[in-house]
């Protein structure tokens, strides 16, 4: 029996590929398996090949496999495009409707998916028939899927539930009768532990909600829109508001306005939107407004590859605005990390009164994976330095002076007074300003204010800026970020099996860049490989820029729109020895 396998469904976009994959993944997650699901799709609603690959295992993996065990094909295109990666002796389940043909190295099961579905009541139930067929191949009890179906269709009435269950059962029996249950693709049973199953975007939205974010102006863009769509559903219960703005410029400025007003506010976008937000991000830096910006990176430049994986906004995230401002840039790695990073991001924004950019990448944002339950009590809300009316009444007897919003302090942090606070009236301006926020071009003031803003992080490394796992004094240390955690982890395991000692360093904070910790984390390795989804090696450049040194650094790059597979990294490293 197998401890892990890979199942893939493919077909024309819009014909149920996504829902079939989703139901399959959710059902297996509920049985206690670890599931990792990654969807390939195009920037269109109908038509074009799309597929959803689901990896099921008894231990956690954070990426897809390089092969498929079972391929479910809704059209011949899927077989032509995807059967090549099906293992020798693997299974293809295909709809009889299109008279499928498949290469010799696979077992082809031609199943009347559509016909059975029609007999049960409707052709759209072919996804249920195919789930039943899959259950039979994988040796899963039929209840794996029928339970999910009962819950999902409960509201549509018993008849619908019964029809769908019948469709599953008929698909299951067809494969059993055809001998498809004896092919050694049976999965070892899982322990039934209930965990969460979600994508990074879900976790970001939940994290924002838990962190007290209550205003989210945003403009729809792939792959970020899920965050606003989720919160539009959830905010009414907590008095929050999502505004779909006219563009990203408005989104960013509105986020700033709400932060100024005292709300925890944020926006979410992808590369093109981030570019439009840059001027306003500079304003947030200049006026010391705590705002959080999620950038779910996708293939650039310009419209680029809007539905494909890339990590090419590092420079724009770190250095994008004009002039020089304080900024924090985080890059979580998993849904758990996304959730807790949002809490961290809002606290950091409030503490340091500056923009915080939370980078993700398309693979992290959209791939759904098994996730340990989140703990609300681990999310603390710390609003930083706030001047309340009571404090102001005590501290500032009527002097006639305005509140010094930009008071020069040792830390560079000065208390904020929210509009509406008696005694807190002050000015805010993107023009260089004095302590009370009035425009000032005075030379000494300019120097003081630049240093106030830019020195907030002097010598500071944020806790948890990176993690390191694996061997000490390794032959190779592999440095990565974002969703590449999974491929790197697995590549390290395989390299060890092949006698190459390896460590995995995962960078979580890009600003303030953790120079010392990273230097330390890389220094015992003979070689360093920087793994990143871009063409120019942006992270590699950051090492040089910030002065992290190592005599043997090379870049393992991927910019074809696809996610890294363990084998990409494994082969790259092997090629070095």
């Amino acid at each position, binding site marked *: 029996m197998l401890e892990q396998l890979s199942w893939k469904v493919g077909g024309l976009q819009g014909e149920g590929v996504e829902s079939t994959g989703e139901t399959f993944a959710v059902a297996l997650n509920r049985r206690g398996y670890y599931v990792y699901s990654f969807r390939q799709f195009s920037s269109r609603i109908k038509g074009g090949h799309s597929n959803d690959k689901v990896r099921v295992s008894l231990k956690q993996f954070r990426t897809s496999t390089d092969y498929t065990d079972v391929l479910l094909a809704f059209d011949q295109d899927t077989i032509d495009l995807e059967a090549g990666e099906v293992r020798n002796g693997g299974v293809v389940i295909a709809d009889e409707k299109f008279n499928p043909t498949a290469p010799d190295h696979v077992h082809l099961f031609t199943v009347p998916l559509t016909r059975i579905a029609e007999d049960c009541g409707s052709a759209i139930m072919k996804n249920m028939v195919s789930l039943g067929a899959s259950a039979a191949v994988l040796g899963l009890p039929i209840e794996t899927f029928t339970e999910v179906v009962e819950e999902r269709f409960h509201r549509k009435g018993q008849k619908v539930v019964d029809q769908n269950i019948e469709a599953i059962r008929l698909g299951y029996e067809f494969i059993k009768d055809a001998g498809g249950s004896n092919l050694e693709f049976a999965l070892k049973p899982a322990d039934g532990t209930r965990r969460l199953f979600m994508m990074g975007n879900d976790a970001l939205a939940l994290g924002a909600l838990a962190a007290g974010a209550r205003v989210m102006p945003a403009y729809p863009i792939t792959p970020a829109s899920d965050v606003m769509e989720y919160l539009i559903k959830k905010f*009414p219960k907590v008095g929050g508001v999502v505004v779909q703005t006219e563009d990203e410029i408005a989104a*960013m400025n*509105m986020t700033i306005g709400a932060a100024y007003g*005292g709300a925890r506010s944020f926006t979410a976008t992808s590369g093109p939107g981030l570019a439009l937000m840059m001027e306003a991000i500079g304003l947030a830096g200049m006026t010391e407004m705590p705002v959080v910006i999620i950038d779910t990176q996708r293939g650039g430049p310009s419209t680029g590859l809007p539905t494909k994986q890339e990590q090419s906004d590092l420079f724009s995230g770190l250095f994008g605005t004009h002039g020089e401002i304080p900024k924090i840039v985080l890059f979580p790695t998993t849904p758990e990390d996304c959730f807790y990073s949002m809490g961290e991001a809002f606290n950091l924004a409030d503490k340091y009164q500056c923009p915080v950019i939370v980078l993700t990448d398309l693979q992290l944002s959209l791939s759904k994976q098994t996730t340990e339950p989140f703990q609300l009590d681990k999310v603390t809300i710390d609003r930083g330095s706030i001047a309340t009316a009571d404090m102001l009444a005590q501290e500032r007897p009527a002097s006639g002076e305005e509140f010094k919003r930009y008071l020069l302090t040792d830390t560079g942090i000065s208390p904020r007074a929210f*509009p509406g606070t008696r*005694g807190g009236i002050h000015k805010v301006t993107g023009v260089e300003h004095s302590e009370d926020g009035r425009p000032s071009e005075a030379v000494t003031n300019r120097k003081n204010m630049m240093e106030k803003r830019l020195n907030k992080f002097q010598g500071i490394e944020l806790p948890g800026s990176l993690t390191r796992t694996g061997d000490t004094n390794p032959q190779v240390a592999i440095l990565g970020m974002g969703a590449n955690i999974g491929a790197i982890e697995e590549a390290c395991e395989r390299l060890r099996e092949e006698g190459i000692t390896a460590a995995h360093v995962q960078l979580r904070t890009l600003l303030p860049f953790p120079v010392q910790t990273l230097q330390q984390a890389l220094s015992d390795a003979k070689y360093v490989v920087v793994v990143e989804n871009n063409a120019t090696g942006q992270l590699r450049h950051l090492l040089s820029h910030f002065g992290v040194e190592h005599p043997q650094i090379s870049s393992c790059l991927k910019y074809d729109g696809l996610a890294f597979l363990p084998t990409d990294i494994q082969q790259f490293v092997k090629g070095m020895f």
Partner: protein
Amino acid sequence: MATVTVKDFRNDVRPNWCPGCGDFSVQASIQRALASLGKQPHEVAVISGIGCSGRISGYINAYGFHGVHGRALPVAQGLKLANRDLTVIAAGGDGDGFAIGLNHFMHSVRRNMDVTYIVMDNHIYGLTKGQHSPTSAHGFTAKTTPTGNIENAVVPAQLALGAGIDFLAQGFSSDVNQLVSLIEQAIQHKGFSLVNVFSPCVTYNKVNTYDFFRENIVNLDNLDGYDSTSRVEAMKTVIETEGLCTGLIYRNDNRQDFEDQIPGYLTTPIAQQNLQLSPEIFAENLKEFA
């Protein structure tokens, strides 16, 4: 609490406007309107963008935010969402509002948040020293139209009506009494309001002068039987006067503003709410992913 007077809205900053600039009257009118409505300075925020007139947020004793060019309205709306108890006034020039910021203007009208937008419309770019603006007339000569403007001017009132505005007024810097009254009504109107003010630039615009406006403006206050509740009459009047009319052009108080329609939006401002999420709601949310 002592009664507020216009003095409470004054600070010690001297505007860097040229002597004779129309914006002085707009500033004074806003201050008078706020005092006569009995607002407390700390309950008011003035949000502005870039341009000579954009400096106005620094010249009124209230909370003030001076952002980037053309984006006063998004900032003002964000602020209003965070604290719906505030009186939020956005202010700026015709370049800020109808060139770089036009997109935001049209959508702010459509969105209809309770924000008052006051535009100081001088038909010229002053701060950058004399380029034509989106409200400069065809044929107008300026540094960037040396042989005369070959583009047509936008008519702000027409745009506003076109976008479905519920409160539209125009004033003139020389008629402070009318302007104060219009600003008062605009602030009191629940929803988005525009007060477009003809506010001459005495330095760079030698065409659209005080005399020009005095001679060409039609004051609706003097028009017998003008019905400011009729959108059709408003549009007709704006077209007939080519936008050169002052007074209350259109008002509709029968539509809910944005805030009142946000599902679950509370009367307590977001800025004053307890942000801690209840464990029950959190558990309910997580269940959907199990």
